[in-house]
């Protein structure tokens, strides 16, 4: 078994259109997706969630503020799973709620 990091990238949502009810449903979707991976014994750790705003330091001491408009999808967080191959890891990534929000899941092997 190898370890893989699943990185969630998501576009900017139109927050004002989302109701508390839909938010609660979203939490349920994340929960069942993660639990599904854990139930099969593939879950390693639940990573971290990142604020979508921050600062960027560039060469020459240039500091810019987020949001990073030039990047279409922002890195929102990650979890770590284990799988026999990258294809198996990709299969587990299916059903991740960011996909429904037009985001993406990037699957990257972690060097042991």
């Amino acid at each position, binding site marked *: 078994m190898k370890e893989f990091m699943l990185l969630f990238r998501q576009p900017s949502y139109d*927050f*004002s259109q989302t109701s508390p009810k839909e938010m*609660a449903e*979203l*939490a349920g979707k994340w929960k069942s997706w993660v639990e599904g991976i854990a139930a099969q014994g593939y879950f390693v750790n639940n990573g971290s*969630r990142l*604020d979508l*705003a921050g600062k960027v330091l560039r060469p020459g001491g240039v500091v810019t*503020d987020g949001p990073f408009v030039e990047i279409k999808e922002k890195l*929102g967080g990650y979890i770590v799973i284990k799988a026999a191959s990258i294809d198996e890891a990709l299969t587990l990534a299916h059903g991740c709620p960011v996909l429904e929000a037009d985001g993406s899941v990037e699957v990257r092997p972690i060097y042991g």
Partner: protein
Amino acid sequence: METPTVSLKDLFQQEFPRIVAVITRQFGVQHMHAAEDIASETFLAAAETWGIKGIPANPAAWLYLVARQKAIHFWRRDKIYRDKVMPVITSNSVSEEELDFSEEHIQDSKLRMIFAVCNPVIASEAQIGLALRILCGFGIEEIATAFFTNRETISKRLLRAKDRLRQENIQLEMPADQDIIPRLENVLHVIYLVFNEGYYSRTQDQVLRRDLCLEALRLCLQLTTYPPTNTPATNALIALICFHASRFAARQPEEDTLLLYDEQDSSQWDLPLVRQGMHYLALSASGNYLTSYHLEARIAYWHCIPEDSTTKWEEILQLYDQLLTIKYSAAGALNRLYAKYKVAGAAAALKELLELQVPQHTDYYLLLGALYEQLDTEKAAKAYQQALSITTIPSEIQLLEEKLKNLKK
């Protein structure tokens, strides 16, 4: 899986108005929309994080922490923008660290928000819409369902309302003591309309309708926490809502059925709510003003007494007589005639009904049919058929078809 989802919805709905109120208080009413975005963005972060890591021990504190961070970020960005665009900073520039999520500050901000949103400078429908969104935390979709329209219409209506508040430079502050009573009158009216929207809504969504009524109750109770707004009228409105809401389950036992008062199973009435209503009705009986809420609350109270008696219907009839003199409505006039029928018989009520100048909606024909049932079955059937040709509401259609079937027996 099911239970946590439901309670999270409640939590988000409860926290939405609180977060929006505190942030709007800090940044000003012109940034109400940004405050909504910050609250929603906070819930989004919570939905993902809690979905993966589980719900923290103190979810509200978690939300306030994230909302504060996001608000500070927004403020910094906005300040940069304003510094660049407008070299002169306005006087409401405040320190971002002041964002205060203490219980006391939240309650105070929410009260101010009630007065900002229920403001006659915006159209009455928009006030209800904005109240549902900003004060009760409903989503645009749910508001659209309650109003029987689409989300574009509601979105536009709310945006226009917020623009208007900005143009009028409405501040998030309590009206001065001498202005409280007239302003409170409008606030109570909006809450009353929110309640009506739930109780008489054309939508079939039962849960939503009940939520609307409960939110109206919550807003009223909030007003009782501040002495100047804890008036007899406020208490009367609470009593009114409690009494009506107590019959919710009995009135519509299933999605498609609507039971008229006579046919309701009184064992289904929610007695704790009736008792709560009586408590507030007692509190409302002071001061020098008799409002329509007082009269409507007393009418609703009598409807919570299951035993039919002459006193009951005579009392109701008198209350309707008083109510119609201070607030005339077609629905009130029809309801009064139902009491008249109970007191003086079908013929007397029918005579007045035929002379009554009211729009001939479903309710008119329902009453006409009920009265004719005692006098002339054929005319009763005709009245119910008239009602059937007008209504499009499934529960009403079912009720009318049932009545027609029973007539033939």
